[in-house]
């Protein structure tokens, strides 16, 4: 099924409580080599047919205006996956 994958991450300068909790757990397990963990979102948009260039542009707009909030998050990537 053709998909568009949108990846969203909390902004680098913002506290990421979920990432911090996981990083602390890894430290406790002895993984001192891991210095930080940040957790974002992967959102899949599924299509019946391979998305057209127009649909890909629309997906980018959806990613920027609905799937993310520019004040607190960055859209890291919008990519097409055809399988």
């Amino acid at each position, binding site marked *: 099924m053709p998909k568009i994958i949108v990846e969203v991450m909390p902004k680098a300068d*913002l*506290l990421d*409580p979920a990432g911090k909790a996981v990083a602390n757990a890894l430290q406790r397990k002895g993984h001192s080599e891991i210095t930080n963990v940040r957790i974002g979102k992967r959102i899949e948009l599924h299509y019946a047919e391979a998305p057209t260039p127009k649909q890909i542009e629309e997906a980018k707009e959806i990613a920027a205006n*609905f*799937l993310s*909030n520019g*004040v*607190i*998050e960055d859209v890291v990537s919008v990519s097409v996956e055809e399988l």
Partner: protein
Amino acid sequence: MRIGVVTFPGTLDDRDAQRAVRLAGATAVPLWHADKDLHDVDAVILPGGFSFGDYLRCGAIAAQAPVMETIIDAANGGLPVLGICNGFQILVEANLLPGGLIRNEHQHFICRDQKLIVENVDTAWTNQFTLGQEITIPLKNGEGGYIAKDETLKELEGEGLIAFRYSEVNPNGSFNNIAGLRNVKGNVVGLMPHPEHAVEPGFGPDTDKAMRSGVDGLNFFTSVLNWMVKA
């Protein structure tokens, strides 16, 4: 005077908001997220809760609901709109107020009677307060940390768009102690604490005079009645 209270899936405080409207002397009109019609209301309240399970981001999905299309247009035209807690988050996600709300700095859900300073009384929802007045109303949220870009904060401070600031304690790490905002016209106000839980003696925050006697929240609802009489 008819004041609409919107219910989204996952809204919790719609009944309390309706009750506050009635105690202020107005008619409460239940509005439904999927119904674009505002049923001739004179003002709208977006109440607290966890609309759409806080999925995606708090308030993000509710901001796309059919009723919000009408509310955004009406708010831009001057209709008084009050967003409480999740309602504030919805107003921010709907771009009716700037900035964003993130998880509390200390990462805990917080529930307390919160002191606020009234920073602006030229709005539909705050005109029955006096400037600089200290009020106490309940606060209960997990994602109430207000953030905004530096230039947005400068504009908010410079233009007098901050409606409320936290007093004594900043409960969630909000920038500049911001508890609530107003828009330029003054018809839209959003805040994290809950005025609708401090409207009736016996059920409000404690005061120096008696337990649970605090009714500081009632002024929000009488303010909008006063605003509409003047308008």
